[in-house]
């Protein structure tokens, strides 16, 4: 147990699995698999496992995803870390191939692979493709790929272990804004399920559902609201596909109020699916959705920060919904 950053927790998980499985590979592009954390040894996968297994590729994210998939189909465990700039370039390979091949082969294809897709959405000043946070929806719609989005270092490690050990292809979304988050993370390997939402705070007045890069603001808002006496049930979605409908429905059956929070664009954001699932199953509830508007992220911090959902927005919307 030690305080570890998100990335340290993830690389620790990967390092242990790569030590066990001598053919497992890691493909990266810009971001060398190196992490350090106070009081722990530096992890450097490239140095430890060599360039045959840990490969720095050219700027070709279709290759990164396709090579990962090809490894999986040939029985070689593979993980690729695709930087946010390339998280759309590899889309077709994951959507049309990784997502369909198991079903299409009648169950023959095993794909013990993980696509770590970095997301941005946290960087005022970059704009366009360099500040967006939209891919959760694209990847969550794909049928044969498990799509998850941890929001804490501890979940990041446990879900990475699960993802590597899972025989299905896993899209592991990594909101880069969480890079600096630190918390106590066990040193040994452990697994965290790839199909369970996490209830972060329990309450009976309102259910607030968020995920990934949005969670810190959700939790901040929950604390504020609790301070003013509201009993807030906060759910960290964690898994988009499959989605943990049961936890969502049970919660709203109790609270009858559902507020979803997304940094993804409003139309067809994950919250739309959350609301739809609950609305099909809970009568008489009230619903509200917070999301990034249906606009690309602008460069100016003044515009961007105003548009990105934050704790203030959540507090006000929750108060309206409950009030």
């Amino acid at each position: 147990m030690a305080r570890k950053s998100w990335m340290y927790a993830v690389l620790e998980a990967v390092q242990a699995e790569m030590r066990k499985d001598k053919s497992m590979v890691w493909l990266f592009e810009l971001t060398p698999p190196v992490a350090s954390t106070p009081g722990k040894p530096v992890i450097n996968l490239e140095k430890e496992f060599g360039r045959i297994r840990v490969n720095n590729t050219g700027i070709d994210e279709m290759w990164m995803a396709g090579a990962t998939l090809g490894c999986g189909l040939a029985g070689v465990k593979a993980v690729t870390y695709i930087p946010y700039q390339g998280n759309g370039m590899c889309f077709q390979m994951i959507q049309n191939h990784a997502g369909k091949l198991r079903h299409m082969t009648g169950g023959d294809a095993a794909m013990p692979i993980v696509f770590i897709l970095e997301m941005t959405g946290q960087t005022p000043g970059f704009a366009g493709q360099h500040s967006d946070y939209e891919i959760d929806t694209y990847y969550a719609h794909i049928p044969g790929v498990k799509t998850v989005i941890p929001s804490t270092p501890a979940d990041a490690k446990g879900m990475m272990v699960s993802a590597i050990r899972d025989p299905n292809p896993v899209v592991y979304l990594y909101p880069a804004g969480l890079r600096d988050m630190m918390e106590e993370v066990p040193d040994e390997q452990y697994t965290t399920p790839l199909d369970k939402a996490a209830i972060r705070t329990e309450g009976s007045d309102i259910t607030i559902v968020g995920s990934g890069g949005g969670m810190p603001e959700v939790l901040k808002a929950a604390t504020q609201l609790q301070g003013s006496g509201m009993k807030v049930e906060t759910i960290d979605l964690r898994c988009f596909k499959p989605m943990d409908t049961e936890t969502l429905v049970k919660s709203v059956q109790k609270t009858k109020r559902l507020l979803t929070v997304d940094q993804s664009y409003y139309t067809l954001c994950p919250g739309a699916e959350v609301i739809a699932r609950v609305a099909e199953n809970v009568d008489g509830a009230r619903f509200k959705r917070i999301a990034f508007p249906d606009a690309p992220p602008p460069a100016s911090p003044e515009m961007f920060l105003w548009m990105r959902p934050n704790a203030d927005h959540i507090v006000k919307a929750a108060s309206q919904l409950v009030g």
Partner: protein
Amino acid sequence: MPETRDISPETQTENPVLSANRRTFLKGLAGAGAAISLTGTLARANGEIGFWAKDLSNDQLIEMYRTILRIRWHERTQADKMLTDPGYRGYNHFYAGQEAVATGVCAALNNKGKFEELDVVYSTHRPSGHAIAKGVDLKKMVAEMDFRATGLNRGYAAEMHISDKSVGFLGADGMIGPGLVMAAGSAFGFRARGSKQVSVVFGGDGTYATPAFHGTLNNAALLKLPFIYVLENNLYHQYAHYSYSCPMKDIADAARTYRIPGVVVDGQDVMQVYNAAREAVERARAGEGPTLIEAKTYRYYNHWGAPGAKAGELGAFGYDPLAITSFRPEREVRAWMTRDPVDISRNTLIRWGVVDQARATAIETAVRAEVADAFDWASRQPLCKPEDGLKNVFVEGSVPARQFG
């Protein structure tokens, strides 16, 4: 029975054929092969091809002939079924005319054993020839193409997407381009595992223009992957001549950019294809990197299905409702049919003294019976259970039905 054809390219060689002087003769034939090849040069990027076929046993040579026949008669039987049996729902992107390519390549691969030792093959939307050559169970393949629950992929795949891990046939997924990348990716995995396996991908002339063409060759070359890209240039992608999308006569020339061998081979002659493939496989296993093999070939049917074909006859001519504005000239089809891969392999075996006419015909008769059996077996197999569509999305369990609300 195979068609009688006017001109056999084999008649162009005047050497007397005796199995005793096979080795000498073969050298002569290799020259003749080069002379009649479409490009005038073979393996220009890689010097002379070693004439490996000379070392094959009679059994192996006969098995290659049998494979060619199996592909051919699978096609002809299926085409006839499509043309005459209105209840038959299967279809195919026919491979007839190209049999020597799949057969020659797969004969150079390791197709039996544990999955961790098999060479793997990735295929295309035109997979049945590749599948048969790699060794998939014919009965199960025929059943799959007829949507049966006991088919190769239990009815989930159908023609364009068949696969069979047990023989290293990783499959077809019908998209043009991405399969190249995945195949090179498997080679990346082999290298990481320190295995001697080789990964092969088949692709048409249509694959040249895809963005994946570049990424695949570039990465395979940089990393010296055990990877072979067999580009079957049958001159057309759907209804477009390859000159519409490629500025070169020989697509193999593109290999120069990647500093890897680009080999042009006569795709109608299984021995020449085998030689080129064998050379590429040795290179790959020795850690010397990938090879691009361009096989010049032709398909006898239209792009998809059997339009323009007649039951009992080989090939399709004339109108194709899918072509809309462009057709292949009938004379081009007929000209290519004069260099038929079935004839070429049969005649080679006879001239080499491996089989005589009677034995060759007997082999063909046996293959036809085997194919007929496969269709018969398949037609008696059960259809799929509807709710099985919810299985096999993930390794575990089923997904919920959602169509009922």
